[in-house]
Structure formats: C-alpha cells, structure tokens
C-alpha cells in the first residue's frame, strides 16, 4: 500500500484540530451505516464494513459492523440521515458506546481514462454522551492503481488488472486509511495522549491515493 502524500507540512497540530477528542477520550466507537448520496449502490456496504479496522488500528474499540447492523435493524435505525442531528445518549445507555461515527458518501465515480475511482466522503465522530463533534474531515479522494503509467493507451492494455485492483471494498479501505491517519490515537495505542503536537491534516482535503 502506498500513499501519495500531498501537502506534507501540516499547519496545525491535533490538539488544536480535535480538542474535544482529547477531552472526552472515547474508547468504544459504534459505526452508523453510511449515508449514501452517491449513485453507487454498493458504496454503503463497502464503507460500512471497512470502517472498524482502521479505528481499531488507531487504538479504539470499534464494535463489529455485523453486530451493530443487527442492532440498527432491530431499532429500525438503518437510515443514519434521520439520526445524525439527534442526541446519541441512547447508544451509550444500550450498548455502552462512547462515540458514534457517521459517514456521508457525497459522490463515487469511476474515471475511465485513468482507471481510477473518485470518492467524496465526509467523516463525523460524535460523542455519545456530549453530542459534541470529536473529529470531522471531508475528502475528495482519487484512488488509483500503482500500475497506472500516465499514458491512457498503455494503461488500456493493462486495464483488466487495474479493474481488479480497484474493487469497491479496496477503494473504501484506502479512503478510510488515508483519512484516519491524523486521528488522535485511542487508548490501545502506544501514542495515546502523546500525539497532541503531531500534525493534523486539513479538515477539507483533496488527495490521490495509490494502491
């Protein structure tokens, strides 16, 4: 996996960018089904199932997507758009969640010429008890395969391979991994509480991510 890093020198540190997250120190996070405003039907499932792993790698306890889904269905709460502005206390009461992650997929489109996928997505982490915004970023991410030569004609020849590389689930995973890079680390990370002076990424960003 490789990231093309654009804008390497961040302007603010994480403590300044995400003060509420450092204050609340959430441990357990429940992921809401993504709000899918794009025309790509599979985007919702792809993102929903790939969000827990990077959260765990960032030091948090993320509830498994399958079990959360059982809960959302039982509660008829599959539509996150109806809940995003509501108080989240009930999730702490019923499941012990400290924080809730919302995602909104604004667009998902294939760029045929470069065999890449362009996704516009917003991440919003809210405190389950405080309802405060703990972390929020919006990105326009272009996910492309590393075999891309920059020449449309040469790429055409290897198109089959690249299509396989840009599977929906891989695209979602890349977007999540890239975005969460600047999320302050949680309790299970050796960096917990120590990364306040590390750089935060831009709140709204545009980036090309290669596989």
């Amino acid at each position, binding site marked *: *996996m*490789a*990231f093309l*890093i654009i804008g390497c020198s961040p302007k603010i540190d994480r403590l300044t960018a995400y003060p509420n997250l450092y204050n609340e120190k959430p*441990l*357990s996070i*429940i992921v809401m089904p993504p709000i899918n405003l794009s025309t790509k039907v599979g985007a919702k*499932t*792809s993102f929903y*199932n*790939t969000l*827990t*792993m990077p959260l*765990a*790698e960032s*030091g*948090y*306890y*993320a*509830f*498994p*997507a*399958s*079990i959360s889904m*059982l*809960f959302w269905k*039982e509660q008829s709460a599959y539509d996150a758009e109806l809940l995003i502005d509501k108080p989240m206390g009930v999730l702490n009461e*019923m*499941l*012990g*969640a*400290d924080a809730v992650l919302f995602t909104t997929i604004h667009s998902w489109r294939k760029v045929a010429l470069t065999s890449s996928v362009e996704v516009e997505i917003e991440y919003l982490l809210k405190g389950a008890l405080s309802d405060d915004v703990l972390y929020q970023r919006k990105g326009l991410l272009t996910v492309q395969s590393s075999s891309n030569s920059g020449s449309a004609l040469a790429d055409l020849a290897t198109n089959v391979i690249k299509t396989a590389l840009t599977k929906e*689930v891989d695209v979602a*995973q890349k977007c999540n991994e890239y975005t969460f890079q600047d999320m302050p680390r949680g309790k*299970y*990370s050796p960096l917990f509480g120590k990364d306040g002076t590390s750089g935060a990424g831009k709140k709204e960003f545009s980036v090309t991510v290669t596989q």
Partner: protein
Amino acid sequence: MKKHFLALLTICLLASCAPQQMYYWGDYNKAVYDHQKEQTESSKKVLLKTFEEIISKSKKKATRKRVPPGIYADYGFHLLQDGQLEKGMRMLEKEKELYPESEQMVNYLMSQFK
C-alpha cells in the same frame, strides 16, 4: 536512473512513515465483504475460517499481540447464526474478558439468541 531514484525514495519514505499494524487481520475485510455479498455456505465457511486464523495467529503477529477488538464477538455472532450456540457464547465471553468495554454490546447480542 531518475525512475530508480524515485522508487528508492518512495520506499524510504514508506519505511519511515508507515507504522506497523497493531493487530493481525488476515483476510478479514475481504471475507466479511464476500460473505455479505454472497451469503452462501462456502462464503460462510471462508469467513469462519478467517476468524479462526486471526485468533490463532494474533498472539505472534503485529505489535499488540492480541486478538483484535471485536474479532471474538464477530466470530461468536457468526457461530450463533450458524446454530453453534455453545461455542458462539464462549467466544462472546472471551470478547468481554479481553475488552471489558464490550460488555453491554455483547450482553445485548447474547439476549438476541436466548
């Protein structure tokens, strides 16, 4: 020459930037996704095997040397759905032991299968 230099530079950058993973995940994302899409006996088998593989290798791999958060619970849930009640419940208990913050969520799940 320039190409080689760029490749080398990229490798150096990655080596210094990319943090080692805290947990071992095997083929988790793919297995979960495939099973959700296919919902077949064979996709279920692959998923259950993936959980077993993660659990057996976690103590030796990655930096935290622990089964990742949610894996015992997710495995337990799929065992329960498969009718393997006793083993499923045992896995759920393990999740609570390893990650006490999961207690309420796991209790909720257990209540769905009683």
